[in-house]
């Protein structure tokens, strides 16, 4: 990928978010090992890797859900401290969790504004304004959505997903972390989410996209970062690699140029697991 035009041009700008030398350990398990990764405005960085590769843990550090043991985070070139979800949100870093992280017993507006409720001058919840704002966001995300008063428990998977996305995009996010955004969705809803990712990218957001689905990642990402057993194998420009290169990185934990004939021979024998 060296010598290509794209990456050089990108590297000249200051990344929107940059994580440097991140380490996370759970007891004896080194879940994330000295990982550095970044994303630029208007760019999707696809994060892939096998189960337990550390993708979600790395992103949980950025969203404030789990503090890093060491390493630094820079937002537009300035070092910031992210110790909890509030810190991340203060930096306009929003997350759509794989579990969606919705309070099932509360309605859509309540979930969209959870932790950031609008209040009246008397300090009470401004339910009208919150419902109004939620209706406006939803009109864009899922025009058929009508059930603003029901607890989200009673909504379908796609509708719940829309609520989680609405929460992330309503507050002028600059950086969006999407953890397996299409894993639980049907084909139509998946297409809807893909369109949304493209649209948000156009609007200049920087997006980290975690996905098991290599086609999703290839389709949507500008760069692809591969993790293997807690470390970053590498970040490559999508136009300079093939899906096979990426699969090789995921399975072998080596960059394409490092792969030997012996590795490939072993792969042939073991019939590589895809996804």
């Amino acid at each position: 990928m060296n010598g290509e035009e794209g990456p050089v041009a990108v590297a000249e700008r200051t990344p929107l978010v940059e994580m440097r030398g991140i380490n996370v350990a759970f007891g004896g398990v080194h879940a994330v090992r000295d990982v550095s990764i970044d994303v630029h405005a208007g760019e999707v960085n696809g994060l892939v890797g096998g189960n337990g590769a550390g993708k979600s843990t790395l992103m949980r550090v950025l969203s404030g859900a789990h503090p890093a043991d060491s390493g630094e985070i820079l937002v537009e070139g300035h070092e910031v401290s992210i110790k909890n979800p509030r810190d991340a949100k203060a930096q306009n870093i929003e997350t759509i969790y794989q579990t969606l992280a919705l309070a099932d017993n509360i309605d859509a507006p309540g979930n969209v504004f959870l932790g950031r409720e609008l209040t009246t001058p008397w300090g009470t919840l401004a339910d009208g304004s919150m419902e109004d704002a939620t209706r406006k966001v939803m009109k864009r995300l899922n025009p058929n959505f009508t059930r603003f008063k029901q607890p989200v428990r009673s909504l379908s998977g796609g509708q719940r997903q829309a609520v989680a996305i609405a929460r992330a995009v309503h507050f002028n996010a600059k950086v969006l972390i999407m953890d397996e955004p299409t894993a639980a969705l049907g084909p139509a809803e998946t297409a809807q989410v893909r369109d949304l990712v493209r649209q948000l990218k156009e609007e200049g957001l920087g997006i980290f996209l975690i996905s098991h689905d290599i086609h999703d990642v290839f389709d949507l990402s500008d760069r692809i970062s591969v993790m293997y057993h807690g470390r970053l194998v590498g970040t490559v420009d999508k136009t300079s690699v093939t899906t096979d290169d990426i699969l090789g990185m995921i399975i072998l934990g080596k960059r394409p140029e490092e792969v030997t004939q012996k590795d490939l021979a072993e792969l042939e024998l073991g019939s590589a697991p895809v996804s």
Partner: protein
Amino acid sequence: MANVADAAPVSGQVEPPARRSVPGMLAQTEIDLRLFGMVVALAAILLGFHLWSGGKLIQPNNMITLAVQAAGIAIIATGMVLVIVSRNIDLSVGSLVGLVAMSYAVLMTDWFPHIFGLAPDTPFLWVLALAMGIGIGAAIGGLQGFIIAYVGVPSFIVTLGGLLTIRGLVWYQSSGAAVNGLDRTFLLIGGGAQGSIGGTLTWALALVGAIAIVAILINSRRQRRRYGFPVRPIWAEIVLGVAGCAAIIGVAWFANNNFWPQGLADRVAAEQGWGPAPEGGWKIPTGFPFPIVLLIGVTLAMTWIATRRKFGRYVYAYGGNPDAAELAGINTRWTILKTYVLMGILCALAAAIVSARLNGASLDIGDTYELLVISAAVIGGTSFAGGIGTIPGAVLGAFVMYSLKYGLSFVGVNSPGQNIVVGIVLVVAVGLDTINRRRGT
């Protein structure tokens, strides 16, 4: 059943086909069906015992006695809802009621006269006593809440320890003796003829309540109109308004048909120089007794906290999904701690009612309250799975439980017999609720 709407009708929130049926019309009023069901159950219980007793139960004085008995439990149950909704429990409420009740007694009989030099029945002594009691309740609740939320000891253990420890402290407060003789104004908190607000104020309160209901209905409709949200059909608004006002005015009228005991009324009339008694003696309406007024106030305040304040929203969010609340940036520990502070304050209010009724405190005051309060909350639809339960539900739950107890004792069933029935009702109520929930998503 609720999945019908999953296909997402293009506009409007209520499904029009169900319109003519009774359930469909109920849905259009957007009444909480669980609450509605409980009101029906409560009416059925009272009516049943009324018939069983040969038409003697439903009378103003009986209903007021019943309500005063239930008031203390209902007040604490409003707080227990928030504790259980946020996936915790408080077993210490009975002991805390005992401790604060004994505090009132010791303060008013010993500390105020002997240490502070305040003569008995000094004006506003009751305010001082009540403030100190609330302070004690809040402090102990806060301490337990701190250990639960910040140290991370399970609430069952912390409050079980609290149950034993606090009950033990009651003994040391009075060296094992019962204490009697409270401030005379303080005694009014316990109710009775003189501890009631009287006919005029009761009517005034009902009028304010009726106006408030209409104002809230109009205001919320206007709000939703302004934003262009779907609104209830106008007939539903009118039904709600009329039913609400009728209920409030009916209850006030009922309470105002309870009169002072004849001897007391005549004596007061003579003291005040009201002249010769009319035919049949003086009739002075008691109206609402203070414990009921306090319960109404607490129910409104707690409902407001639970549904209109961020704190209430966070309690429910944590109960629904603790991780989601955490990831949303909510300070969950502080939220949990505050639920226990509220519990302490509510226990202090209940303790005031109980000790005022007894004109003092005994060592076992508040004994087994924790069980009654938890039962009331659970009968009222609070779920131990977390995230589900309402304040008015818990208050109704307390009234359902006490109607059963009162009705049974009225027809001559003894206390163990009452416990059997209440125990069975508790399990059956929750069982029906569970089956119901399983069917409707």
